[in-house]
């Protein structure tokens, strides 16, 4: 579904990623793990068009993503969440989710000022759909609340719902449980499984090993900008390179 081949990124003379290749299969949950500073978030920033690769290719369902602006990548069917949550705090939950529908709510300014029936119908339908997405993450009873008032874990769930509103086929989650307590982690793990079961592909990056191993179908390991292993969680767990590079050095719980 998402094919990354020979991807490289350097900032000035500093090489962050080198010769990174892996495929994210359609369906299921794919995990990219690695110690802090391994370059995981850079991979996401390259996929979503926030950064331009220095070398290599990224293609999604056969389409080359090189040079596309972030909103164009989103419109092809890739959504993402951020490690440090970026919900719109001054807006209600419902409005947050409706922002995610922007590309699908494409009535022009003229229709908008005429308040045409088609435009009103689109609005009403979008509200319905937004409520449904909120109900997926069990936040629909707070639809009219300002997002700023949500707890940390609930803000993450809102971010999931908002990302799903773009109708992605692949959802990128950047350290979805960073800074969460164990109870919140359990809830979010459940939400991510639900999202996957509804037919969305999930690609997450994480350094919380237990979380990744319990959740992912396939895992790739990034260390110092290079892929050092790829396989099922069991294979990864027993890979000597991974044990040396990563598991040997427990750094769970650090914020990156």
């Amino acid at each position, binding site marked *: 579904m998402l094919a990354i081949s020979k991807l490289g990124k350097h900032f000035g003379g500093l090489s962050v990623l080198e010769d990174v290749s892996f495929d994210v299969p359609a369906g299921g949950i794919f995990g990219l793990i690695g110690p802090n500073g391994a370059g995981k978030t850079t991979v996401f920033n390259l996929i979503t068009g*926030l950064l331009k690769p220095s070398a290599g290719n990224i293609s999604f369902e056969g389409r080359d993503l090189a040079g596309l602006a972030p909103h164009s990548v989103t419109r092809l069917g890739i959504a993402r969440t951020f490690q440090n949550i970026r919900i*719109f705090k001054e807006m209600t939950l419902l409005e947050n989710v409706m922002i*995610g529908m922007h590309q699908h709510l494409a009535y022009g300014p003229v229709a*908008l000022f005429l308040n045409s029936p088609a435009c009103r119908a689109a609005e009403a339908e979008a509200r319905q759909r937004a409520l449904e997405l909120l109900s997926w993450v069990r936040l629909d009873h707070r639809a009219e609340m300002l997002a700023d008032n949500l707890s940390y874990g609930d803000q993450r769930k809102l971010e999931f719902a908002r990302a799903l*509103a773009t109708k992605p086929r692949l959802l990128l989650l950047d350290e979805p449980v960073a800074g969460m307590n164990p109870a919140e982690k359990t809830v979010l793990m459940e939400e991510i499984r639900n999202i996957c079961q509804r037919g969305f592909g999930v690609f997450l990056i994480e350094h919380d090993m237990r979380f990744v191993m319990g959740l992912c179908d396939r895992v790739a390991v990034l260390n110092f900008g290079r892929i050092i292993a790829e396989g099922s969680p069991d294979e990864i767990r027993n890979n000597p390179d991974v044990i040396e590079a990563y598991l040997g050095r427990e750094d769970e719980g650090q914020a990156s």
Partner: protein
Amino acid sequence: MLSQQLLNALTLGSVYALFALGFTLVFGVLAVINLSHGAVFMVGSYAALFLVTRFEMPLWLALLAAMAVSGMLGLLIDVLILKPLRARNAPHLIPMIATIGVAITLSSSAQGIFGAEILRFPEGTIPAGEFIIGDVHVRAIEIGIVGIAFTLMAVLFLAIRRTQLGRALRAIAESPKAASLLGINVEGLFHGTSFVAAALGGAAGVLIGLDFNAITPLMGQPILHKGIAVIILGGMGDIRGALIAGMFLGFAEVMSKAYLSSQLGDAVAFGLLFLILLVRPSGMFGRVLERKA
């Protein structure tokens, strides 16, 4: 006497609010303090005057055309100057200084083309009708000014609050990066916002030109200062705040001119603003919003 002054204040205040609205919109969405907004206002005024005198365009059509001209100018400023600066991640002061350059260029050009003297709309252009309600003389043009200013403000306010376009703008105001990753064409909306804000500024210029019937190349300067005061008082980026603070400034200015001293009008109005800011540093309704990249 008092009710007559209230009417004057309402007229002036609604133009201030209209001017400040475009100013605060650009600040909210683009995070730029666009100091060329006063010059765009002046260009709107000259555009209407030119169309009325040279092509004998009816006033309402000249107003629309002047809005289109100033809107295009705003778009041009965004594409030619602000966009390259955005692309280079220029720190906040840089676009602000660049727009001072734009303002100077525009007012010098106006001076070169139209001369430095005060220009007026030709006799008979401005509707001369007058109504007498109680002891208040209401000029038809004043009704027009207040009506047009409030209509434009209401449309913008509803668009921002109630529509998807408005939601997208508010999303960009909070985080352009998150907005772009949700499928919003942020650059496109930056251009659109620049157009609309400048068109509103140009409309304010035409309305002031009609109210005082005096158009000069430097007329953008005092209103720019007032616009800055209004958006600080109303809360940076706050549309409702700009409306109320614009009205407040209009009232303070007219009332102090009428009842204290005609020379000290601006001094009293700005003194009041200063006092309010001492008590409420983030504006009348203000919460200071922090913006993430």
